[in-house]
């Protein structure tokens, strides 16, 4: 990745209120040109509002919206040269597939915008888009006569045919069944590579974010908590929220406590400690790790089969935790006492407010450089 990527789209100090409730309060977000950026967060966090602000479907109460370096804060959607794929696909029910895809181009050419394509050019581009998405042969169908996956591809075709500066995708996979969703994820990434376009993809599903994004941003309650590559976000979550939201099963985070059964590592430490379920080991590892790390003792509460692994739920006076354990390996029965050990270099440290202060040990780095934190080698 180049050092200073060009900016495809940007929100600068954007404020957005509905009535008296603020949704966004001075939010900054940059989408590098050519990126497949995924904006992920729980429902109601403001991610869709960001998308709509960039689309021109909403207008900010403060701050600026820029696309390709131009301030478009006051421009209506139709002047912004963006395309959007909607959660429910939003295909026009009364038009054929071909008319749906061509609608935007035809409107533009009717208005005789500079550089707008003429009729044969439109037909050619529509045909190209339909072929690219394997929709040829369905031109005369109406949306009601298509399967869910076909509708989704028509929605994509409608977006790409316009060759916009910016693609906005609003949870486009959430209306597909699980199997189709998996396939389409890969297709979308391929499509992005092929078009080398700038895309902003909004979802509440962190799996989609990790698997598709070239760059991802995690939002909660109207604020961007962390921006980075999926790997960075997964391995060095900036806050407890990000740590728990990204990754499945979620990270275990404990406040340091004196309760019985909770033994934190010696040496520097901060208010909260977290670890990912694959990194916990049942008691055997304790001695081997030189007694350095986090030790939890409690009882085995649940055991869920995830396929290769079991997710073991451990409960103690200090709280609960989940760890992965090979499904074939022996493990205690529910109700029996267990000890969990997490090596020091697998630990994530957070302060009282939930902000990351470091990774592993032995010395937590200075608080003011959380993103590059951690002297120990990062995880797998």
């Amino acid at each position, binding site marked *: 990745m180049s050092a200073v990527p060009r900016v495809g789209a940007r929100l600068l100090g954007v404020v957005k209120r509905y009535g008296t409730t603020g949704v966004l309060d001075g939010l900054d977000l940059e989408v590098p040109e050519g990126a497949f950026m995924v904006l992920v967060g729980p429902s109601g966090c403001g991610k869709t509002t960001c998308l709509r602000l960039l*689309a021109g*479907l909403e207008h900010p109460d403060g701050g600026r919206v820029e696309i390709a370096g131009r301030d478009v804060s006051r421009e*209506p*959607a139709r002047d912004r040269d963006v*395309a959007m794929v*909607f959660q429910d696909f*939003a295909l*026009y029910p009364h038009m054929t597939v071909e008319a749906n895809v061509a*609608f935007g181009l035809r409107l533009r050419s009717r208005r005789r915008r500079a550089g707008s394509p003429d009729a044969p050019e439109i037909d050619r581009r529509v045909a190209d888009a339909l072929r690219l998405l394997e929709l040829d042969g369905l031109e005369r169908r109406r949306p009601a006569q298509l399967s869910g996956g076909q509708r989704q591809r028509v929605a994509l075709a*409608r977006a790409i045919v316009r060759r916009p500066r910016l693609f906005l995708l609003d949870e486009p996979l959430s209306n597909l069944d699980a199997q189709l969703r998996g396939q389409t994820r890969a297709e979308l990434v391929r499509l992005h590579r092929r078009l080398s376009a700038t895309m902003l993809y909004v979802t509440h599903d962190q799996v989609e974010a990790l698997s598709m994004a070239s760059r991802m941003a995690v939002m909660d309650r109207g604020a961007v908590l962390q921006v980075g590559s999926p790997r960075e976000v997964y391995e060095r979550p900036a806050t407890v929220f990000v740590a728990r939201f990204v990754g499945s099963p979620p990270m275990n985070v404990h406040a340091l406590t004196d309760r019985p059964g909770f033994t934190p590592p010696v040496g520097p430490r901060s208010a909260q400690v977290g670890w990912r379920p694959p990194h916990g080991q049942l008691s055997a590892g304790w001695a081997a790790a030189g007694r350095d790390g986090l030790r939890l003792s409690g009882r085995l509460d649940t055991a869920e089969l995830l396929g290769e692994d079991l997710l073991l739920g451990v409960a103690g006076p200090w709280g609960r935790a989940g760890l992965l354990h090979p499904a074939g390996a022996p493990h205690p029965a529910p109700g029996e006492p267990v000890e969990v050990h997490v090596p020091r270099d697998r630990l994530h440290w957070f302060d009282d407010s939930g902000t990351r202060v470091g990774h592993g040990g032995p010395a937590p780095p200075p608080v003011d450089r959380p993103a590059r934190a951690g002297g120990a080698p990062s995880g797998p």
Partner: protein
Amino acid sequence: MTVRELRATLSAHALVVLVCVFSALPVVWAVSTSFKGPAAIFAPDLVPADPTLDNYRATLATFPVARLVLNTGAVAAAVAALQLLLAVLAAYGLVRFRFRGGPVVLTALAAAIIVPQQCLIVPNYLLAAQMGWIDTYVGLAAPQLAGCALGVLLLHQHVRAFPRSLLDAAQIDGAGHATVLWRIVVPNLRPVLVALAVLFFITSWNEYLWPLLVASGTERATVQVGLQAFQTEQGNDWGRMMAAAVLVTAPVLLAYGLAQRWIVAAFVQGTGR
């Protein structure tokens, strides 16, 4: 089917048929009478013993059927089309733009629906007279346009339930408000709009009090006003009266017969949910 059920079904059909007879009798009897000569008119036969076309010949000579039907139909069509246009624009405007005053406008339109027409005829007549609209098509149609308020109210519900993402998608595709309204919203509300158009047309077609006041001359008279004038002239010639009634009814019933499935369905489905 058990005997009891069969009996219940039969008695149900019997009652419904009885009501159908009640509904159809006036028209059926009018048709029957219109084919009877002066002597047979006293006979209570449903099928005339000696059918004649004399009544029709005599009626057509003095009664401008075509003119009346065309007047009424043209005015009703124009009124229905304009009311639909006004209602679509207003309903879209009220839903799509949240503006101060919108709720007040909606309330004002809703309240106007229940004002009895009779309470307004004097000033409306004065206004129409002042504009020189007495005995004109414009005068006949203009006040009826206020009936669009009902359409605004009905359409408001449907426009509000219109999927927001479709409107957004159209905007992103580069559509302005006009394009969104006419190329996205209207085509998708077609069943409702058809039902509303039928309702508007029938209402205007059946309008009586206002045409009675402003279209009493034969040139602009509507079916009802014309028939009433004919009745006053003809006095007691019931054969001719019924012939006239059948003549003005025939186009309506014909249109209804052709489109009845559609009209009834528009009502049953358009207002059912």
